[in-house]
Each structure stands twice: as C-alpha cells, then as structure tokens.
C-alpha cells in the first residue's frame, strides 16, 4: 500500500525540484518547464487527497490545475516567442528594463 507519508515526501520533493529549477535556470523556457513540475507536484497532492477522503473534490482541483497549466503555457510560450523575436535570447536577466 502507498502510505500518506511517502506521497507527501514525493510531492514535496517534486515541488522542491521545481523550485530549484526556477531558481537556477536563466532560460525562460526552462523556468516555464520548472513551473510545470511544481504544478504537477501540487496536482499529485490534490489527487492523493481525493483518494484519502474518497471524494472527487481533489480531482476537480486537479482539473482546474490542468486548465491553469494549459493557459499558463499558452501565454508563457507566447511571451517566450515574443522575447526571442525582440532580443534573440531567452535570458531573463536581460528583461529588467521594466523594473517590474
């Protein structure tokens, strides 16, 4: 049987790998990929919760995360393309001109 502890361990580990990716990568594409990993980590947690409590709410949340991921990727990749067109690089450190 799968224990709750091991599932939490897995989810948190996956999440932290995603965080690590966001922190260390300068390429916008890799940052987006890392965010996908983080989203998946949370998704695992939701589905696990769904199983633990034996109701479908967790999976509904998973669906929402999926939607979110899809939207995020669509917009994010659009930005990646735009950025590449403008500056011929995907280095986010070059993007500080807006001081956002």
């Amino acid at each position, binding site marked *: 049987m799968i224990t709750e502890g091991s599932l939490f361990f897995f989810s948190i580990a996956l999440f932290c790998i995603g*965080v690590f990716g*966001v*922190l260390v990568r*300068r390429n916008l594409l890799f940052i987006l990929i890392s965010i996908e990993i983080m989203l998946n980590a949370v998704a695992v947690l939701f589905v696990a919760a769904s199983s633990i409590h034996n109701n479908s709410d967790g999976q509904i949340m998973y669906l929402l995360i999926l939607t979110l991921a899809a939207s995020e990727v669509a917009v994010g990749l659009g930005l990646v393309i735009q950025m590449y067109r403008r500056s011929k690089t995907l280095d*986010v*450190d070059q*993007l*500080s001109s807006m*001081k*956002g």
Partner: protein
Amino acid sequence: MDIQYISNLLLAVPLLPLFGATVLILAPLFSIQIPKLIVSVIAVGSISLAAICSILLNIELNEPSFNPVYGNWIQVDELTISFGLYLDALSLVMISIITGVGFLIHLYSIGFMDKDKDFQRYFAYLNLFVAAMLILVLADNLLLLFLGWEGVGLCSYLLIGFWHEETKNNLAANKAFIMTRIGDTGMAIGMFLLFFQLGTLNIQQIQTSAAELWPLVDVNQKYNLDMVTICCLLLLAGAVGKSGQLPLQSWLPDAMAGPTPVSALIHAATMVTAGVYLIARCHGLFELSPFAMQCVAAVGAITLFIAASAALVQNDVKRILAYSTISQIGYMFLALGAGAFSAAVFHLMTHAFFKALLFLSAGALIYSMHHEHNIFRMGGLAKKLPVVWLCFFIGCAALASLPLMSGFWSKELILGKLLDQHMYGYWLIAIAGAFITAFYSFRLFFVIFYGETKKEPDSQPSRIMVIPLSILGFLAIFGGIQPQGLIDMFSSPDSGQASHSIAIVAFTILVPICAVVFSFFQFKKGVFGRIIQSSVLNQIHRFLLSGWAFDWFYQKIFIDPFIELTRMNKSDVIDLFYKTIIGASRMLHNFLSQFQNGQLRWYSTSLVLFSVISLTFLLSR
C-alpha cells in the same frame, strides 16, 4: 441754542475736510483731472468752512458740554460704541486751533507747494489729516478717538514720505509710524483693560465709573501699581508715542523729511499735541492715580531737558525746531503731571501759534534759500528777507517766552503751578529748560540773520505765504489769553491760585532774558569765541547732536536683534520638520526601490527565501 443746528454744525467740522480729501483722492483714481486752482479751492475751502463752523460753535455753545450721537458703530453684547462727538471747552479749543492753524497752513501751502507736481495728492493728505485730527479731538469714546489717532498717524506717515522718490524720506516715515504704533498698541491694551474693568469705552463714563470703582488711593500707597495706574500708564504709552516724548521721541526729528508746512501743522501744532489732549481729556482718570501723574511729570521733565539740550547743537533749522517741539511738549506733560491741565492746554495753544509761525517762516526761508537747511551756511539775511526776519523774531521771542509774548503767559502759568504743587525739582528742570530754550532759539535767530552773508536768497516769499505768516505772527504775540472755558473746566475747588513772591516771579522772567543776552554776545558779537575745541566737548557735542544717541541705542537693542532673528528664520524653521518627513520617505523609497530591480530571478529567490524564513520562524516558535 438749537440742538439740531449745533449737532449738524459739529458734524460738519470733521466731515468737510473729509469730503475734500475724498474728492481729491478719488478723482485721479477715476482719471479725472482737476486744475490746480480748483484743488486749492476744494482743499482750502473745506478747511475754511470747517473753521467758520468752529467759530460759530464757539459763539453758539453756551453749555459746559454737548454730546450728540450720530449712530451706532459697533454693538456686540454689552460693548456699545457709537459715533458720538463730545464738545466742551477742551475740544472747542482744540478744534479752533486745528481748523484755524490748519486753514492758515493750507493757505500757506498753496504758495509753498506751487511748483510741486503732486500738488493734489498733498492737499488730499492734508485734508484727510485735518479730518482725522478733528475726529480725534471730538470723539466721545476711546475707539473713535483711536480712529482719529491712527488716522493722523497714517497721514503723518504719508506726508513725511511725501517726496517718496527718496528712500531716506520713506525710512523716516516708517520710523514715525512704527514708533507711534508701539505707543498706540499700549494705548489699545489700555482700552481693553478699561473696557474689561469698567465695561464701557465712553470717555465720560469711564471717568465717572472709575472714580466710583477706584477711589483716590491713600497717599502712603501711591506707588502701588493698582489697576487705575496701569490703565493710566498704558494710555500714557499712547500719548508718549504720539507726542514724541521719552522714550519714543526719536522719530520726530527724522519726521522733518516731509514738506515744511506739514512739519508746521502735524509735527508742531496739532498731531504731536494729541498726547497732551488725551491726558487732558482723561484727566479724571489720571487724577485718581498719583503715581501715573508722577510718571507723566517725570516723562515731561526728562524729555524737555534732553530735547532742549539736543536742540542746542543742531545745525539743521528744522531739526532745531523739531527738538524744540519735543521740549515744549515736555513742558505740557510736566504741566499735566502737576495737575495743571488748563495750563498745559493753554501752552499747547500758544505753542501751536508760535511753533507754526516758526516752521512756516523756516519754510519760507528754505524756499528762498534753494532748499538749504543748514543754519551755518546762512547768515546776514536780516536785511535781505525782512518778512522772514520779523516772523522769526516774533517766533523766537515767543518760544523763549520773553515777557508779554504769548509763550510767556503759558510758560509762567506752568512754572507757577509747579511751585504750587511743591514740585521744586521739576521747577528747577523747567527753569533750566527755559534758559536753554531761550539760548538756542536766539542762537538760531542770530546765526541765520546776522554775521556775514554766505548765500544769497533767490526769491521773496509770495503774498499767499505772507498772509498766514502775519496772522500767525499776530497770534504769537497776542494769543496769550487763556480761554475762560478751560479754566472753568479744569478748576477744582482746592487748587486756588497761590501767589508767589516777587523775587521768584522776577527770577523766572529774567532767566530767558539772560539767556537771550548771553546768546547775543555769543553768536552775534562772538565774545566768547568758538566753543572751545577739546575732545571731551566734541564727544558731548556729537552725543547731543544725535539726540542723546537714542537712535544708536534702539538700533543695537531692538532693530539689529530683530532683523537678525528674522533673517535667521527666513526659510521657516518649522518647514524643516516637514522637510525631514519628505527626506525620510525619500530615503525609504530609495532603499525599497532597490528591491524592485526587475530581475525575475531575484524576485523568485526572495520569494523562496522569505517563505523559508517565515517557515523557520513558524517552526522555531
């Protein structure tokens, strides 16, 4: 006596000059040109009508006092101030002097100011002055009196600075206004105090209720600063400021920057005697406080001596006369302090005649001598300007109170009164002052009119200037008749005229004559030679020339620290507080905006970092 008629007549006295002033002021504002002749007619006409009104009042008034009220000015709660005029012997004498002398000086001014481009403005101010002065002396309450009081101050300011292109004149005007304003503020506080204590500002009511509230204090406690004394001293502050008495006297010599007829009217005959009038008007109040009376006498005595000694060494003919005015008003204050109110007002009257005469003849002299003021650059003019010579002689004789001149009677009265009151110290000062007065007035006379001719006069005074001079000359000789009304008004049952020994009377008569003789030998014959040249005497000379160095003293004590203080705080200390707030928030802004650097990885790292820190914080609790 028709009350309606008299009250209309009384109202006309101040309103006529006011009307003249209004017309003359408003016309140029609406671009209406008035020819010089019409200006003279309006200005002199309004004054002469006012003078006729006051003569009629002299004839018509046969009651001790007359107090018509023309309406309410301010009425708040129990504070009621009306436009009420009060006519009694004192104000009657005053309006006669003001309109009479004012008329003569207006007339004289037509000649004197003939070539001036601001002819109309001059007469507008002068008319306004006469109106304000008449309101001052006719007011039945202190606030209306204060209106006139400040009004004459304003006109004095405007007329001292009449030739406004020169900064020197404006500074003199400012000095006059501000110094009198200091006294006026004291007087205003006195007004507040009187209202607070007595609940009224009507002068007659003040005196009656003050007498009830504060019965005359015991002689033993007479140096207590009780309420009535404080009130009197505050009023005295106003009087001192306006009348150029110590310690606010130093504006008056500088005020000679104005046109000479102005000096004659404002700074000799009328405005500067307003202080004397005020104290005489409030005599009921002052009599309640022996200490205040002592102060009045002391101020008068010290001023008369200081000013007379300063007049001794001046070179400028107008400054000599200015110091002499201060000194003569000192006599009036001394008389007031001695309780000789009628003598004081009598001296005010004779002084108005002979000092106006002296100033006007000085004006004629200056007019003929290309605006030369220094007496040592004149000389030998007796034959060349005979009219001026005669006027000067009459004026100086009256000022020196040579026997039978008008000044003689009034000064004798004051000296006699001092002896009556057993104020021997003051009597001595007064006698010394009389000696110095006679000496410097004939020094003036001899230096100007005898000796070698240094400068030729280029013109004789015109006829329109000579007429007022001759009338004033007549008055200066024969004007020494004390108005009976005054004697009636101020005579109190216990002050019977004590007779003095012949020796003392003879002494007081002889003193000025000796001084004249001494002066004759000194300045005409040069018997005693030039004043001995020594450094000590030079120092004293310089000290006296500067009017006992009051200006220097005030500059150091008040003006310099004041300017320094305001200069230091020019950019407002309190603003620093708000600037600090601005600076602090700007620093905070700069500090915080460093975190907003646009580096995406910095943001994500700090996000993680702060979640780690907050988790650590949570766990370590």
